[in-house]
């Protein structure tokens, strides 16, 4: 079993390395083989995971730890290459390899005409390998290695079409903003090692539970620093504004990295360290409030976007906000469960959006689409499933996970957060069906010039099924997090939470029927609000004004480098001295004679006088 687990990240890593190095050795791989290699490696990893599932069948409480090699060994500081597999990492690994495989398969069709086919698959495979290391790592440093590597791959893939300056800028933005969070996380790692003397996740948490009081300020600081990393990676307030821009990358990349896997790494990190977070009520509260505020801001911003991918990006931020909310409420298993269902339906939505864009010649604006239901029935159906799951309509996968989160909030008597979550659910349902109605119903304005390829349809099919039937919580999760059993449900409240998204859909239908989507706004007040929401609550402008501009001003002040001027002064002085001294080396024999004689006279006089 230990080799099996080791194989899971190594297969994509091997494929990525091969694809990267092949051109260096003048090895040209024919295009079909590039696809076979890239997709096959992830597929093989998925098969490994499936075998793991079979081997662990029936067991609910398992935790496997394998150490493969020694990485760093300095005095008492020992870091191993070790993997840790329990229900949480198994769920994550399944999502990454399963959804990852489908998206790889889809990419083979989507990127068919791109000339950088090989580079694309190399990056994508490298990403999957890094993500697998992240979720399997048994110590925080190895996790951090994966964490940074996925950041790198995300950067490379956002800027994949680097000929356009905007894509490169978006990639830079994503990289720099996540780096801010990562710095906090690195500090958190230092602090954890300082406090516990180990970075092994399980040992660290055991020690924390046995030796530290609940609510200790050091533990809270640890948690908040880890939270900073999670916030940056997962696009939560206040570091959320990179995610909508990250849509500059190819659509399958958005599906894999910026919807299904990488952005949920923050959720995974907090769930992985949940024993630590449980010791700090303050940090938990921060997590919950960050989640709640983010979900509301992002949901309202998604209401007014016109770019199909930006709508989905904001909705991703908002859904991860739900996960953070659940984490903050201590509903660990519900958060990971929502992570799983979200991976299914959001990947489905992104891939359908990709199919849409593929068929419409890179058209992103939803108001220039319309009436596509008949022309692209397959895409329409998968979009409908995805939107319904996103809106948490009853009996779809998103419904069960969201229901669990809302329930938990009520149990914890966090009524204000529950209310925000409910409003968020209403808005979510509203904007997802706004998207659906505008794109697929009404008058046809554009003619799709090609149909999605077969390799693209298959992943849509599978993900569609998963989005419908994926609402079964993995048993191991509930056991791992020892969450309270199914409690007394208040029927009225359940009906109410079911009714909210349905009302939203009905309302969206009414608004659509009256043709108010996309029509010009009547008064300047509404226009102002629209603009405010459209810019994602003006965070970019705010950061530009309050952070970037002052920073640039400060750097301008120091443009000539104050410290450097000291050294430049030294250089000038020694140059002048040199010029002065070199006058004496004139190369004239008589000059030398003269100085010799003068010196002799002076020296002798001095000796005699003395």
């Amino acid at each position: 079993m230990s080799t099996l687990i080791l194989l899971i990240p190594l297969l994509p890593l091997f494929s990525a390395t091969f694809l990267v190095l092949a051109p260096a050795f003048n090895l040209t791989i024919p295009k079909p083989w590039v696809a076979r290699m890239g997709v096959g490696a992830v597929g093989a990893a998925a098969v490994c995971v499936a075998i793991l599932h079979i081997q662990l069948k029936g067991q609910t409480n398992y935790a496997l730890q394998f150490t493969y090699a020694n990485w760093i060994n300095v005095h008492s500081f020992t870091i191993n290459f070790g993997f840790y597999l329990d229900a949480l990492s198994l769920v994550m690994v399944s999502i990454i390899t399963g959804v990852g495989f489908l998206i790889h398969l889809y990419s083979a069709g989507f990127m068919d005409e791109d000339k950088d086919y090989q580079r694309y698959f190399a990056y994508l495979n490298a990403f999957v390998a890094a993500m697998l290391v992240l979720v399997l790592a048994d110590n925080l440093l190895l996790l951090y290695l994966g964490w940074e590597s996925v950041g790198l791959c995300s950067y490379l893939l956002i800027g994949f079409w680097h000929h356009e300056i905007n894509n490169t800028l978006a990639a830079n933005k994503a990289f720099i903003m996540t780096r801010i969070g990562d710095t906090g996380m690195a500090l958190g790692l230092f602090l954890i090692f300082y406090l516990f003397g180990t970075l092994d996740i399980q040992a660290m948490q055991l020690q924390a539970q046995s030796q530290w009081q609940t609510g200790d300020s050091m533990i809270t600081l640890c948690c908040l620093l880890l939270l900073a990393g999670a916030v940056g990676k997962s696009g939560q307030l206040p570091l959320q504004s990179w995610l909508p821009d990250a849509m500059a990358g190819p659509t399958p990349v958005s599906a894999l990295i910026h919807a299904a896997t990488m952005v949920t790494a923050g959720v995974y990190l907090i769930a992985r360290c949940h024993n630590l977070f449980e010791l700090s009520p303050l940090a938990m509260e921060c997590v919950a409030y960050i989640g709640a505020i983010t979900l509301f801001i992002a949901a309202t911003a998604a209401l007014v976007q016109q770019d199909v991918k930006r709508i989905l990006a904001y909705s991703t931020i908002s859904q991860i906000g739900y996960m953070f909310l659940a984490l903050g409420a201590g509903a660990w298993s519900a958060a990971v469960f929502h992570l799983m269902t979200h991976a299914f339906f959001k990947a489905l939505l992104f891939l359908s959006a990709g199919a849409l864009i593929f068929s419409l010649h890179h058209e992103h604006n939803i108001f220039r689409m319309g009436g596509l239901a008949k022309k692209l029935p397959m895409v329409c159906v998968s979009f409908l499933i995805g939107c319904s799951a996103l809106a948490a309509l009853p009996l779809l996968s998103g419904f069960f996970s969201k229901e669990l989160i809302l329930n938990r909030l009520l149990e914890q008597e966090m009524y204000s957060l529950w209310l925000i979550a409910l409003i968020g659910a209403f808005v979510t349902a509203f904007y997802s069906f706004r998207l659906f109605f505008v794109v697929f119903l009404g008058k046809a304005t554009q003619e799709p010039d090609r149909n999605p390829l077969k390799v693209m349809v298959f992943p849509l099919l599978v993900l569609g099924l998963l989005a419908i039937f994926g609402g079964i919580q993995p048993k191991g999760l509930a056991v791992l997090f020892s969450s309270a059993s199914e409690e007394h449900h208040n029927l009225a409240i359940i009906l109410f939470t079911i009714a909210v998204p349905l009302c939203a859909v009905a309302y969206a239908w009414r608004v659509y029927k009256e043709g108010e989507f996309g029509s010009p706004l009547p008064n300047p007040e509404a226009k102002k609000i629209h603009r405010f929401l459209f810019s994602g609550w003006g965070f970019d402008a705010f950061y530009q004004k309050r952070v970037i501009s002052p920073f640039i001003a400060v750097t301008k002040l120091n443009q000539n480098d104050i410290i450097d001027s000291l050294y430049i002064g030294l250089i000038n002085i020694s140059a002048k001295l040199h010029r002065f001294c070199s006058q004496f080396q004139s190369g004239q024999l008589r000059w030398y004679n003269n100085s010799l004689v003068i010196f002799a006279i002076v020296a002798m006089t001095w000796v005699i006088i003395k």
Partner: protein
Amino acid sequence: MIDPDYIVFFSLALFSIGVYGVLVRRNLVFMLISIEIMLNAVAVIFVAASSYHGTSDGQIMYLLILTLAASEVAIGLSLLIHMYRRRHTLDVDQLSNMRG
């Protein structure tokens, strides 16, 4: 017996003339002659000292200096001739190849 002071002053004067000649003259021949003058100044003081102390050490030294001066002139002059053939000048300023 001449007063030793006179001899010392005479020698000093001779030496100073030699130094002056080396310093101001540009022509290598004259510089060589000036060096000879300086050597002679030293020789004079040796001889004077030997007669003052009543020993013969100084006079032996004088013979040594004489030999040295002769060989020096022989080599120096031959070098000068060689130099003149190559460069057609004996001006030290012009002969200088060193760049300051």
